[in-house]
């Protein structure tokens, strides 16, 4: 059967409609590809021969693909008939560590789905300008360790726009943005992933109006050592809902997200200037929000493991932290701050000299104000992790919010420019 994929069946499955006329240097062509035995070849061919400005249209139906696809032409649009209509299925994928790889600038992907890839679903590497609009990436068998790692995976890119997307059952992050700059993630939904959304080693991100439910952890902001871009900073999370993220962690051991305790609303690890406001957190069995240092050994003099200027305000916290995860991270939380776990937990870790003698500089401290907590809950806990490790008998957590009752100026709005205009304008 497989061999027949290479043969043309003589059916007009692939038509090229030239809509431009010769007077323009950039003739805009439109490709229309339908499912069928030669869809793999036709689709890949279109992605190779397309010229900047061209549109590749996907018909409705299930495209059964055997190899990863890739696009390396600037300013191309790939557009389907809808995230539940045009489906690129990689169920019988034989090669390629992702479903679709984009390495060119100013690309717009919209209205289709990528299902059941062996590795990542859609990876975008090293580009300026990528819009992912109303896409669905999903592993249809539900959460499994054997699922691919990332759903939407832009990395080392600038001007990243994700709007109206759905990501389900990734064994790492449903939506992952790494080592990038100028990022918007909005109106999207991620569920049954290990991490709903993860912003890692990135600058200038706005994550808003999204819903993260039934993941292991809803929202993660991480910074890791030994990478080409680090020092994550200037990130806003607002008007998101992160609730009922209690799926047991199914990430393969060794991956950083494998440490995320089931029942986590949000983790901020390392990073500087993260503003978290107007979000709704509830039903997360381990904790709603934790602010933590990078905890592992590392060999990197330039890396800053301690989070700074984390600003949490005007959020609504519902019932959470009633049944902390029994893994390593959850157990420590339980042992240090007790249950019900406070809504915001800081690990209290500082560079040792600061911890012992000087305390954290006032201008770097965690700031919290105007959050709504349930009447019987504890808003804040400092887990005082260092003492817990070095001298457990002297350990006590601290719950006084007063030292953190302060504010920072709001961070600026992030603008993402694609094809010379604000990315929001690409929605239609």
């Amino acid at each position, binding site marked *: 059967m497989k061999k027949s994929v290479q043969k043309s069946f003589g059916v007009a499955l692939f038509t090229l409609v030239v809509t431009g006329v010769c007077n323009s240097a950039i003739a805009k062509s439109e490709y229309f590809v339908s499912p069928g035995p030669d869809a793999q070849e036709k689709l890949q061919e279109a992605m190779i021969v397309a010229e900047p400005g061209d549109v590749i249209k996907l018909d409705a139906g299930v495209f059964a693909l055997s190899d990863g696809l890739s696009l390396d032409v600037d300013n191309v649009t790939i557009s389907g008939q809808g995230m539940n209509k045009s489906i690129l299925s990689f169920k019988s994928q034989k090669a390629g560590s992702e479903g679709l790889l984009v390495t060119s600038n100013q690309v717009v992907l919209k209205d289709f789905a990528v299902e059941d890839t062996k*590795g990542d679903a859609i990876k975008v590497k090293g580009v300026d300008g990528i819009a992912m609009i109303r896409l669905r990436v999903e592993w249809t068998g539900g959460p499994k360790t054997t699922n691919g790692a990332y759903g939407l995976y832009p990395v080392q890119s600038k001007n990243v726009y994700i709007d109206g997307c759905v990501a389900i059952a990734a064994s790492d992050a449903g939506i992952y943005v790494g080592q990038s700059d100028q990022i918007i993630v909005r109106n999207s939904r991620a569920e049954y992933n290990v991490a709903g959304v993860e912003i890692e080693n990135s600058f200038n991100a706005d994550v808003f109006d999204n819903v993260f439910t039934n993941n292991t952890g809803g929202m993660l902001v991480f910074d890791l050592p030994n990478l080409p871009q680090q020092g994550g900073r200037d990130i806003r999370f607002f008007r998101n809902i992160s609730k009922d993220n209690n799926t047991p962690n199914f990430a393969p051991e060794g991956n950083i997200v494998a440490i995320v305790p089931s029942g986590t609303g949000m983790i901020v690890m390392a990073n500087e200037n993260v503003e978290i406001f107007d979000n709704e957190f509830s039903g997360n069995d381990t904790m709603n929000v934790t602010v933590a240092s990078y905890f592992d050994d590392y060999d990197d003099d330039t890396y800053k493991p301690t989070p700074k200027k984390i600003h949490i305000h005007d959020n609504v916290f519902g019932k959470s932290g009633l049944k902390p995860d029994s893994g390593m991270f959850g157990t420590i939380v339980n042992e240090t701050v007790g249950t019900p776990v406070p809504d915001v937990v800081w690990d209290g870790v500082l560079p040792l000299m600061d911890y012992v003698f000087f305390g954290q500089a006032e201008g770097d401290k965690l700031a919290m104000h105007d959050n709504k907590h349930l009447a019987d809950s504890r808003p804040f806990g400092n887990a005082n992790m260092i003492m817990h490790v070095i001298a457990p008998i002297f350990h006590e957590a601290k719950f006084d919010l007063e030292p953190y009752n302060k504010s920072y100026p709001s961070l600026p709005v992030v603008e993402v420019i694609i094809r010379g205009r604000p990315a929001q304008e690409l929605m239609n």
Partner: protein
Amino acid sequence: MALRIFRGLLLAVTLLTVALNLPQAAETVNDQLLMAKKPARYLSEYGLFLDKPARIPNARVISYDLNNPLFTDYAQKLRYIYMPENSAPAPYNESDVIEFPVGSVLIKTFAYPRDFRSPDKDISFIETRLLIHKKEGWKAYPYVWNADQSDAKLKVAGKRIPVSVIWEDGSKGTVDYAVPNMNQCKGCHVNALKEFAPIGPKVRNLNRIHHSDAGQRHNQIAYLRDLGFIGGGPDKASEMPKVPEPFTISDGNLFDRSRSYLDGNCAHCHSPGRPADTSGLYLNFEENREVHWGVNKPPVAAGRGSGGHLVDIKPGRPDQSILLFRMQSTDPGIMMPELGRSLIHKEGIELIEKFIKALD
């Protein structure tokens, strides 16, 4: 030795073929076609070889080999470089790929013997890849050989070709050979400036004895210099950098041979500025920061490629090292390299296993 006999046989067989096919043979390389915007449909149109089956290279089409070639499902590889007459020599350069001038072509044919117990006999060509340095930059074109081995046709969208082989132990097998599409070529063949570029011809990989037809033991770089393909550089081979052949024990110690293997098989993506630099794992030969070549380095985006292990290389523990785990897999979501193989490289795994075991 075996290779030279193989080449001799090939020459004899193909001279005969040429004699029979002479009317169709091209006499000079078609530079105009090579430089044209559109690639030729058939390989033979370029005239890079005197015969359609591409067994006899034309003038100025020079064979060469690398110290640490990439493993590609045990395919045999025949490499040639072409430079037009009157080309200025490519400047000798130790730090990066040698920059062959516009007009140059790198040719690589992938071939399988019918039976690996006689690797010099019944060789079928599967694919010939051309890297052509056009005015607007390097371009890659895969040509796929037809069943009767009379010519190869351009295939830009990739293709899978089942190849039946008999392995060294006599067992029968099928290689699910994958011709890359043009984008997949770029997946590896891209430099730090995101331009398409050759990978292999670096001084350190080329610094070896050349199997020239005259049977003389020329150093390959000196040989290319004598032909006017490379200009400058030290006279003595010992003064030029060299990576050892990974599987030739006399060529270097275990550490250097292993790093050479990783360089040849991984560093086209895993080095600074290359496609896999997002991971911070750099396997180029000159990387000397332990954590960056993998020692106790946690993965970044490995997914199930981690195999449940915590670090890329755990000294002394190959069984707990992600790097080896990914070499041992053929699952597209796990295996490394991502492209170019459907089989595992037993000898490579053995080497890297020993290497990790010996680290402390």
